[in-house]
C-alpha cells in the first residue's frame, strides 16, 4: 500500500504511488472531492495528470458511493511515510504533459450505466469487470501509445504488466475461453485451478489471491455471466508467460 513496487509497462517502469493516509507522502491530506477526481478523471489534487497504469480508466466507472467507501477503507489503514519513487519512463512517455493528450485519445470518463435490456446478474458483472476488477487493463491489447484497443477488448495482450502476456478471455472457442463453463470461470477465480487442473500463474495468480478469491460466489457468477456475452474475438496470444 505504501507503493514503491515497480509496475513494468512496455514504455518503462512506473512506481505504484503511496496510497496510505500519510499526510505528507501519501493521500492523507486529500478531501473526498480530491479522491473522487483522482479516481474518476486521473487528476491529482495539484492538477497534474496520472499515468494510465493507475487504472483510472477503469475506476471512472465506479459509483461515487463505492469510491467514498474505498477512501474510507484506505484511510482506516496505518499511514506509512514513504516518498514516491521518481518514475523511470522513456520519452515521450516520461513527459507528464503528454498525458493530457493521451487522455483525450483513449479515455472516456463516465459512471457505469445500468442496462435495462440485460439481467441483474449481467449488470452486476459488467460493473465488477469494467469498474472494479479491471480485467481489461491486462487482457486488452494496447496501441503503440499505450491506449486500450477497445474494439479488441479482452482478446489478450502480448505485452501485459510485468512483461507477461495475458491470454484471450473472450468466448472464442479455439483461441479464447469459449470452452469454459460459468462454473469453470468461478472456480478459476476462487482457486486458480484451470478446468484441466493446472494452475494460474504470475500476475493472474496475484490478482486472484489478493482480490478475486475474496469476492462472493454471487459476484463471481455475475462476472462469468458478463464475460460469456463478450464479443468472441479470434486471436491467439502465444507470448512469454510468467517466469
Amino acid at each position: 500500500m505504501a507503493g514503491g513496487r515497480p509496475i513494468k509497462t512496455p514504455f518503462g517502469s512506473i512506481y505504484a504511488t503511496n496510497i496510505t493516509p500519510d499526510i505528507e507522502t501519501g493521500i492523507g491530506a486529500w478531501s473526498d472531492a480530491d479522491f473522487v477526481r483522482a479516481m474518476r478523471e486521473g487528476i491529482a489534487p495539484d492538477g497534474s495528470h496520472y499515468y494510465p497504469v493507475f487504472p483510472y480508466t477503469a475506476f471512472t466507472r465506479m459509483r461515487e458511493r463505492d469510491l467514498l467507501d474505498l477512501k474510507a477503507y484506505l484511510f482506516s489503514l496505518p499511514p506509512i511515510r514513504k516518498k514516491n519513487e521518481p518514475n523511470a519512463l522513456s520519452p515521450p512517455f516520461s513527459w507528464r504533459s503528454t498525458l493530457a493528450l493521451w487522455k483525450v485519445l483513449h479515455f472516456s470518463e463516465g459512471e457505469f450505466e445500468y442496462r435495462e435490456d440485460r439481467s441483474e446478474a449481467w449488470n452486476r458483472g459488467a460493473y465488477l469487470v469494467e469498474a472494479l476488477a479491471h480485467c481489461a487493463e491486462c487482457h486488452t491489447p494496447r496501441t503503440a501509445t499505450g491506449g486500450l484497443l477497445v474494439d479488441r477488448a479482452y482478446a489478450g495482450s502480448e505485452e501485459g504488466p510485468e512483461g507477461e502476456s495475458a491470454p484471450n478471455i473472450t468466448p472464442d472457442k479455439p483461441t479464447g475461453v469459449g470452452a469454459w463453463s460459468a462454473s469453470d470461470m468461478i472456480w478459476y477465480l476462487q482457486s486458480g485451478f484451470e478446468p484441466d487442473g493446472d494452475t494460474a500463474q504470475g500476475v493472474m495468480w496475484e490478482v486472484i489471491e489478493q482480490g478475486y478469491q475474496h469476492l462472493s460466489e454471487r459476484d463471481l457468477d455475475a462476472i462469468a455471466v458478463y464475460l460469456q456475452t463478450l464479443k468472441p474475438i479470434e486471436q491467439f496470444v502465444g507470448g512469454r508467460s510468467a517466469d
Partner: protein
Amino acid sequence: MNVRLYILSALMCCALLTSAVRAEEVHSAEGIITYREKVMDVLKYQSGAIGAILKNKLPYGDDVLVHAKGLQATSRLVAPSFKLKAMKDGGGARAEIWAQWDEYVAAAKVLEEAADRLVAAAETGDTKATAQAMRAVGGSCSSCHKPFRIKHANHRH
C-alpha cells in the same frame, strides 16, 4: 606401502570413480524431466477431478475423498522427484529449485500440509469445507510455481 599394493589401490580407486560416473550417466536428463513432469501431471489430474465434482456440485463426495488421498500421496513425491538436477532449453524448471533447495522443499511441505487438510475435510463430507481446503491446495501449487516454474503459453487452456 609396497609398490604393487599402491598400484592396486590406485586402480581400485579409478574403478570406483568410473563406476560412480557411470551411475550418473545412466540417468538421462530427458528421463528425469519426464518423470517429474508426470508427477505434476498426476497432481493436475487429481485436482481437475476434484474441481469438476466440487464446482459442478456433483453428488460424488466419496470420489472426492479417493482423489484427495491420491493427491495427498502424490504430494509426498514433489520434493524427491526433483532431487536430481536436470534442465533443458524451453523447459519448465528454473535453476532456483536447486540453488534454493531448502526453500523448494519448504514449498513442497506447504502442499503436503494443505493436502492433509483436504483429506481431513473430505472425510467429514462437508462440501463447503472441502472446497475451502481445495482452494488452499491451489494456493500452494501457485505459490511454488511462482518462483520455481516457467509456464509456457502452450500450457494455457
